[in-house]
């Protein structure tokens, strides 16, 4: 018995370093059970697995190994794991890093150790602005891109007055500030705002103010559970039924599903990917669905695209050197089952087509996941902040 164990242990001791040398580690770092896991989490991991399936099991002759860790939405935990992965575990690239605070922390480490980080969920515009690094890419969108399309579309429908229900932290405030600029450009007017703390249960008071303001559009500039609660109650107070439009710049398909068709009618949002937009997105999404049991969120889909292109770039440039690989990514168009018309820009943001969507009325849905209709596709150049206006020091302005 003892002998068997000893043999096994020796075997393991020999096998581990050999494997570590052979395998090519890619790490998905995300929130696995908190509020963001709905549009990142296990779905993000599954998307990375699909990318490895499509690319093939090896790169540069090494077997690709996917490692996963949960940062529990804490920036310090994320930074600790990132350091361990990059410096001790030989992880070549970190993906996803849901939530902007964690993403910004990991970006700093990635810049020091010179290994890439590809962000598919974090939406803060600081990531491609003052905090940009040559080793970070923001694969989905930022608050600027999310809000611009929504404002333009609603203004085109005649919206003149706006009311904000804003989550009182960096994301909500950035989103409101960006939207206010676009609203002013269209000649619209902001008639009021209500700030609420993060993790608010009851929005009745804010919704009452929004209703009393008589604004054409009520903007929900919040996320996660706050967004679900405020949308559910907006429906209860009859905001849409009363003729006001609801603008929700950041909402994913799994969240819409969780709200239920009755509660989301008339909601207008921006998405980076729509599962049934065309045959290619649909085929890819069916594969995702078979693995996860839900249709993909745009941010989960972006994780697939990011890893697939990273692996292709490594194979094509024959090295894991981050400068070479990132230069390759910036020099080649990003186009796959998920991303259309993608260009990775000097400030790290992936310019690509976004979709302005409206939630389908319950009686017009053709299936349980037929939740939104694409109002229009917004070309990347129109959706994202022009490089000339970027605050990123890497951009020569």
């Amino acid at each position, binding site marked *: 018995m003892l002998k068997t164990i000893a043999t096994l242990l020796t075997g393991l001791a020999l096998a581990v370093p050999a494997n570590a040398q052979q395998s090519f580690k890619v790490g998905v770092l995300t929130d696995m*059970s*908190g*509020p963001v*896991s*709905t*549009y990142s*989490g296990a779905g993000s991991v599954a998307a990375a697995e699909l990318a490895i399936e499509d690319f093939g099991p090896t790169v540069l002759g090494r077997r690709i190994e996917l490692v996963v860790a949960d940062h529990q939405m804490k920036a310090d935990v994320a930074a600790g794991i990132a350091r361990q992965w990059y410096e001790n575990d030989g992880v070549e690239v970190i993906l996803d890093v849901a939530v902007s605070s964690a993403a910004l922390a990991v970006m700093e480490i990635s810049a020091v150790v010179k290994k890439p980080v590809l962000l598919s969920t974090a939406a803060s515009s600081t990531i491609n602005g003052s905090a940009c690094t040559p080793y970070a890419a923001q694969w989905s969108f930022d608050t600027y891109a999310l809000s611009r399309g929504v404002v333009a579309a609603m203004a085109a429908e005649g919206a003149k007055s706006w009311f904000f229900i804003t989550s*009182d932290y960096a994301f909500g405030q950035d989103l409101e500030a960006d939207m206010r600029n676009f609203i002013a450009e269209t000649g619209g007017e902001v008639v009021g705002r*209500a*700030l609420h*703390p993060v*993790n*608010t*249960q*009851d929005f*009745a*008071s804010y919704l*009452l*103010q929004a*209703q*009393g303001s008589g604004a054409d559009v009520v903007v929900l500039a919040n996320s*996660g*559970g706050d967004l*679900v*609660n405020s949308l*559910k*109650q907006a429906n*209860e*107070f*009859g905001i849409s039924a*009363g003729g006001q439009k609801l603008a929700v710049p950041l909402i994913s398909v*799994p*969240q819409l*599903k*969780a*709200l*239920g*068709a*009755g*509660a989301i009618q008339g909601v207008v949002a921006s998405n980076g990917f729509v599962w049934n937009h065309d045959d290619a997105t649909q085929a890819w999404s069916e594969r995702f669905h078979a693995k996860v049991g839900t249709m993909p969120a745009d941010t989960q889909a972006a994780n697939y695209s990011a890893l697939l292109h990273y692996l292709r770039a490594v194979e094509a440039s024959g090295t894991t050197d981050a400068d070479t690989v990132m230069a390759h990514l910036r020099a080649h168009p990003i186009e796959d089952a998920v991303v259309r018309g993608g260009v990775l820009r000097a400030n790290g943001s992936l310019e690509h087509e976004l979709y302005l969507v409206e939630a389908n009325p319950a009686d017009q849905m053709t299936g349980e996941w037929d939740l939104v209709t694409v109002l229009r596709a917004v070309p990347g150049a129109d959706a994202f902040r022009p490089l000339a206006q970027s605050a990123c020091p890497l951009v020569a302005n």
Partner: protein
Amino acid sequence: MADILSMPLPVLMGQITLGLVTGSFYALLGLGLSIVFGLLHVINFAHGAFYMLGALAAWMLAQFLGISYWPALLLAPLLVGLMGVLLEKTMVKQLYGRDPLYSLLLTLGIAMMLEYGLLWKYGSAGMAFAPPPELTGALNLGFMILPVYRGWIVLCSVVICLAVWTLVHRTPLGRQMRAATEKPELTGLFGINVPQLRSMTFGLGAALAALAGVLAAPIYQVSPIMGQSLLIPVFAVIVIGGMGSVHGTVLAAYGIGLAEGITRIVFPEAAALAVYVVMVAVLLLRPDHRQRRF
């Protein structure tokens, strides 16, 4: 008053009405917590989890068995109440007579296992739960739009608070429950099954939390962690109400609801803080207040 706050009267009336709705909700949740503490001296940190289980049970009944909101309003609290009885019989009762800190830690552990276990299974986005068709729509009160469902919550809360107060203070069963707390040995000598009464009390507390959960399901996010953010303010409410007093809890709940509503007009950012400010004031001014019992 409207002039003092430089607020149009309709806005003030609207916020006060909403304050009453919030208060009703606090009262329902505080009630179960309060009787469990008052009668069993257990600080039940699993109360938020029971509330969540109520909402989740209603969703499951609808999803898997096609049972509508109305039967669920009875069935879900019954199921969660039974689970409460089971937990009491197997675990909670081991800790009677010890420092309440032990039961606090035990129930906190139970809550975390329930919440994170279900989170692993169902994720955090939550489940869709539509209000029953009879209770949709909104009433125009002139100064505000009041959704019918909010009115229903106030009605339920008032009826249930009265019923529980009557049960505890005006029925033989209530007398036995109180006696079992004060003098368990003596009550036992009268041939009353004290352990049974205690299990029932814990079960009743759990069932009340679950009922609040079913009532909340159509308007709040139904998710495994929905009880977490609510537990702490409700604890503050029962501290203000005098830890374990039924009418104290109910009065405190409505008072806090109103205080929150008014704070929302004067200084909106501090609305969530109102409950704690009142709690600190009560504890400082009347430190013995919390020792008042049934």
